[in-house]
């Protein structure tokens, strides 16, 4: 009999990025015993890679800002598929989540002395400064140079280790158990020593991040294979809006080994311009109707805005079109490539070198080093080459907007693993405050539910035996493919057939290919033993990657329109009359993936009044 160790905790938190740590801190504050189970070591999770900042309407840098404007911007950027209740909670609570982080040790950049607001009154020097970002009407992102994610995760980590939570590092969760329809725990293996574990929890929080490792060009690490999404789906949870995968417009493209690594939107926020091979500043040609009044239409006006930003005075001009939302900029770059105006290595140019050298190094230190060390490009002297990279999934586990509980009792989700806040397209900076806001809520409500629960539900031995056998199977196969090959083929396939621009025919091919890839995945032979064996770990990831890719392709095939991050070449325009009013829902039923479309929850009249009336009527 294989040895399986059992653990018991009130609350299980799967994932130790921003959402998981914030949830764990909140749950321990309410007195729960908490286990944090994470694939990497503490402090290395994906949040560490966030660069530009955390969006919160603190109104420090521009007193005109308010939660109402933040709410409006988030809904507009999401093309109105967002759950308005989550957008409202997020806009209202984000400022407090940032202030609280400061009290836990985060050192955000400060407002210098001598600045005035739009009304001529002085801004309060020494408070948290905020930067401009795509889709945000006012400077709204609290930041630390271009390393905001590191500050966030380190602050939560250092707070968390004193909160009493137990951390199980380098453990991968393979299965959630349900008992009488309620999540009762999970199964995990220890990546370092190969030991097997069951965890019984009164409640379980998924804070597992995203899925973008399913695409060949992505900004994600090996961790982003989407097990969290798959775990929820396998446990019977409803998944929403899985067709919406954000391609960040600016990833590195050269040399090949760095393809996909993120170039922060902060470069454009600091005045970076995008040009094609003909030297044309092409974004002026791509301003969508719904944003026409908010963006500069001449280079002079755009430059006047940048000059104001550099001088650190309140902007009075309209902003440059480089700061349009990510979906718009990514598609524009794609169109320029198609029209034969790509840069030397198949992207476009992003240029910040016209700004003062010391300023660039101070504002964008990470980008300066990244390009200097990985591409031998000095961004203070020459343009960068950039192109779109799979970056974020708006879709995920459907949750109650207040408690973050999923459709399966006892299972909660927060951060990128959950869906609702971002609709069809996420605004930059909203993810960091998403994970703080809803991580806190998930921790709070999961702890509350755990406190109301007596004892632990029993986990079926048959279920444990099944997942143990499945987990050890790759090591027992003597002959078979290297799992790395199957993963590579899956990623290339998704890039080609379910990437930025999609068609019905390609998506149908993708679904067929996935069946084949999954079958290959079941026959891989990584070799080696149970001690820290990345081949074995990769072999186990394939089933999750296949199901997640399938969810994305299936819902992309169903949505016959183009909206936000989802673009169909065969249905190139948005359709407000039907598709603009429904969210896709995917679930597992008797071994089969099912899909339906639910009407978006009706918005209250009060909040509807905050939205851009012309956007809503235009598409009716």
């Amino acid at each position, binding site marked *: 009999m294989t040895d399986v160790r059992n653990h018991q905790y009130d609350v299980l938190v799967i994932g130790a990025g921003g959402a998981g740590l914030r949830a764990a801190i909140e749950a321990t504050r309410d007195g729960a015993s908490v286990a944090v189970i994470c694939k*990497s*070591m*503490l*402090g*290395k*999770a*994906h949040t*560490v*890679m966030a660069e530009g900042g955390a969006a919160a309407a603190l109104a420090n840098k521009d007193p005109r800002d308010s939660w109402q404007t933040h709410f409006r911007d988030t809904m507009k950027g999401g093309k109105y598929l967002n759950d308005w209740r989550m957008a409202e909670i997020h806009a209202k609570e984000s400022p407090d989540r940032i*202030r609280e982080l*400061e*009290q*836990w*040790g985060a*050192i*955000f*950049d*400060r407002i*210098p*002395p001598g600045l005035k607001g739009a009304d001529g009154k002085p801004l*309060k*020097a*020494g408070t*948290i400064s905020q930067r401009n970002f795509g889709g945000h009407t006012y400077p709204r992102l609290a930041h*630390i140079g271009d*390393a905001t*994610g*590191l*500050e966030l995760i*380190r602050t939560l980590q*250092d*707070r968390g*280790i*004193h909160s009493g939570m137990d*951390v199980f*590092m380098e453990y991968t969760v393979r299965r959630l158990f349900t008992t009488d329809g309620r999540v009762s725990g999970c199964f995990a293996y220890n990546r*370092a020593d190969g030991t097997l574990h069951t965890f019984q929890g009164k409640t379980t929080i998924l804070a597992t991040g995203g899925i973008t490792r399913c695409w060949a060009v992505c900004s994600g*690490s090996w*961790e982003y294979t989407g097990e969290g999404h798959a775990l929820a789906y396998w446990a019977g949870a409803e998944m929403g809006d899985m067709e919406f995968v954000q391609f960040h417009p600016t990833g590195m493209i050269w*040399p*090949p*080994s*760095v393809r996909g*690594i*993120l170039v922060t939107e902060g470069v454009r926020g600091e005045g970076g311009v995008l040009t094609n091979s003909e030297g044309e500043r092409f974004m002026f040609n791509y301003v969508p109707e719904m944003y026409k009044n908010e963006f500069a239409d001449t280079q002079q006006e755009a430059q006047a805005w940048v000059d104001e930003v550099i001088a650190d005075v309140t902007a009075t001009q309209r902003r440059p079109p480089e700061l349009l939302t990510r979906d718009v900029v990514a598609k524009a770059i794609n169109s320029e490539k198609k029209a034969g105006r790509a840069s030397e290595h198949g992207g476009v140019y992003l240029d910040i070198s016209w700004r003062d050298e010391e300023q660039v190094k101070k504002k964008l230190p990470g980008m300066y080093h*990244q390009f200097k*060390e*990985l591409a031998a490009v000095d961004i203070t002297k020459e343009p960068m080459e950039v192109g779109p990279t799979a970056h974020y999934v708006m879709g995920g586990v459907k949750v109650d907007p207040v408690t973050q509980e999923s459709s399966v009792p006892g299972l909660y989700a927060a951060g990128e693993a959950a869906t609702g806040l971002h609709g069809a397209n996420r605004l930059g900076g909203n993810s960091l405050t998403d994970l703080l806001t809803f991580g806190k809520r998930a921790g709070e409500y999961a702890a509350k539910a755990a406190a109301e629960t007596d004892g632990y539900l029993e986990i079926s031995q048959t279920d444990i035996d099944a997942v143990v056998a499945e987990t050890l199977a790759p090591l027992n196969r003597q002959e078979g493919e*290297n*799992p*790395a090959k199957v993963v590579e083929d899956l990623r290339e396939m998704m890039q080609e057939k379910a990437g930025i621009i999609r068609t019905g025919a390609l998506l149908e091919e993708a679904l067929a290919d996935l069946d084949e890839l999954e079958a290959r995945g079941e026959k891989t032979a*990584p*070799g*080696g*033993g149970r*001690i*820290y064996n*990345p*081949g*074995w770990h990769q072999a186990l990831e394939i089933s999750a990657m296949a199901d997640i890719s399938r969810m994305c392709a299936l819902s992309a095939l169903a949505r016959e329109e183009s909206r936000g991050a989802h673009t169909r070449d065969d249905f190139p325009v948005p359709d407000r009359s039907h598709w603009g009013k429904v969210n896709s829902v995917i679930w597992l039923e008797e071994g089969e993936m099912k899909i339906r479309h639910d009407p978006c929850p009706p918005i209250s009249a009060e909040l509807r009044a905050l939205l851009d009336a012309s956007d809503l009527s235009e598409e009716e």
Partner: protein
Amino acid sequence: MGREVTFRVFRGEPDEDGVPKGELVDYTVEMDEGMVVLDVIHKIQAESAPDLSCRWNCKAGKCGSCSAEVNGKARLMCMTRMADIEEETPEGEPVLIKPMQAFPLVKDLVADVSWAYELNKTIPPLTGPEEKDWVFSQEEADRVQEFRSCIECMLCVNTCHVLREHNMFDEFAGPRFFVRLADLEMHPMDAGDRLEMVKDDLGIGYCNITRCCTDVCPAGINITDNAIIPLKERVVTEYYDPLAILAKKLGLRK
């Protein structure tokens, strides 16, 4: 293209007493343009050794996971370009890749750094005012932000001779945690006092300022001059400066 490079990689596990047991194995792979050392390791995994262990995450120098010793020097594999490695490696010689040597071995290139996580738990966290919306200048922020750019890669700890040669992990916190302590002690809003701990439990006196840690820091933190020396000075002022002690007795100084 078509140029090949040979990596000589440590493969092995510790024995029952924790002593690394293993061998150096040669792998030859074809080079692509712009590769970093971590790319070559990934290529070896994909082509011939799926079970070769190494840690990595961001692949952009932000997470500090892929620390290893390349040609005997501690570095992040993701930020070490093969063009530079080929230049420094003698003609016809393989590139030597080993795990960090100051830490116990898990397997192959993976080191056991749990010491760091345990030590961090003993450091008292920030104690600041209850009121929200703290106010301090960017100049005050700058001083601490340098320390907060630490990615916990542990290359400094691996290089520090107090730990590497003398194995004083129980008496000495090492450069990473003096950076952490400098961050807390110099935080503009912190009211805590950790100097006694810095002196006694964390053994700052053992550091004799050889600057090896600063040399290997991939985040470019000036560990010795900006973190360790100021901490040493504060300890001296607090515990060994007769004038300061007298001033304290007379109530002229806290």
